[in-house]
């Protein structure tokens, strides 16, 4: 019985395309979660390469250090489910390529590290793609305080995180809290797409 429901969910989700803006702690983990539930296509964008220091939270492996994150993530997702279509762009996201990169997406996940980049994407999306839901992550550094991590919806903008704990030299981003927020983002994506008619 549960297998039948799982198949129905996968069939529905296979019709949609989700954009992932940044393939670090949020983007790599959120992308993997979405691939596991059967999203049809992921548009993954990042300019960076995997570094050893990323392995404290990002869905990469030691032997992938030095590879472009988009290439490494595409490979890791293909090992989980080779039927997920991946369009990868090894480039920097700016206000002038947001529409081109994410124009065809049903939902976009903001998965940047830097706050100024988060603001840039939220502003660009609300001007250029105002009808596309955007799932942002804000406030997930450090550890503990499960009870402070929350989700809020502001129209078409969804924000996951405690909205206060920022990264600092003493408060790094780490797998548990970043993973929680990445999963919350994936959960919002799924909620939005499950109620969307094809």
């Amino acid at each position, binding site marked *: 019985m549960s297998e039948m429901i799982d198949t129905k969910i996968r069939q529905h989700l296979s019709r949609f395309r989700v954009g992932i803006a940044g393939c670090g702690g949020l983007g790599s983990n959120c992308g993997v979660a979405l691939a596991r539930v059967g999203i049809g296509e992921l548009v993954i964008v990042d300019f960076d390469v995997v570094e050893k220091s990323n392995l404290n939270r990002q869905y990469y492996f030691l032997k992938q250090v030095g590879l472009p994150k988009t290439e490494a993530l595409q490979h890791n997702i293909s090992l989980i489910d080779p039927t997920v279509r991946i369009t990868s762009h090894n480039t920097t996201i700016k206000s002038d390529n947001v529409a081109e990169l994410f124009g065809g997406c049903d939902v976009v996940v903001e998965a940047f590290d830097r706050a100024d980049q988060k603001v840039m994407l939220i502003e660009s999306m*609300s001007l250029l793609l105002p009808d596309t839901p955007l799932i942002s992550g804000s406030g997930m550094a450090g550890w503990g305080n499960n009870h402070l991590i929350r989700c809020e919806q502001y129209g078409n*903008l969804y924000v996951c995180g405690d909205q206060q704990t*920022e990264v600092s030299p003493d408060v790094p981003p780490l797998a548990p809290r970043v993973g929680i927020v990445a999963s919350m983002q994936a959960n919002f994506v799924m909620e939005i797409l499950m109620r969307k008619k094809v």
Partner: protein
Amino acid sequence: MINIILNNRQESIDVDSMTVQELLNHKNFTFKLLVVKINGKLIKRDSYDEAVIRDGDEVTVLHLVSGG
């Protein structure tokens, strides 16, 4: 007195109307990396002094913090 929805919560402020900048001052929002929307419409930083918030408006002021 205006009644607005600020970040999904009811808020009453003892003025007839106010600019975005006046709201930020009133609430002590001193952060730099903000996203501000009035009734879903993005208000750019250089318009904070002109954009007016009126009774019944739905206002979002988000402070984005680093990490991801």
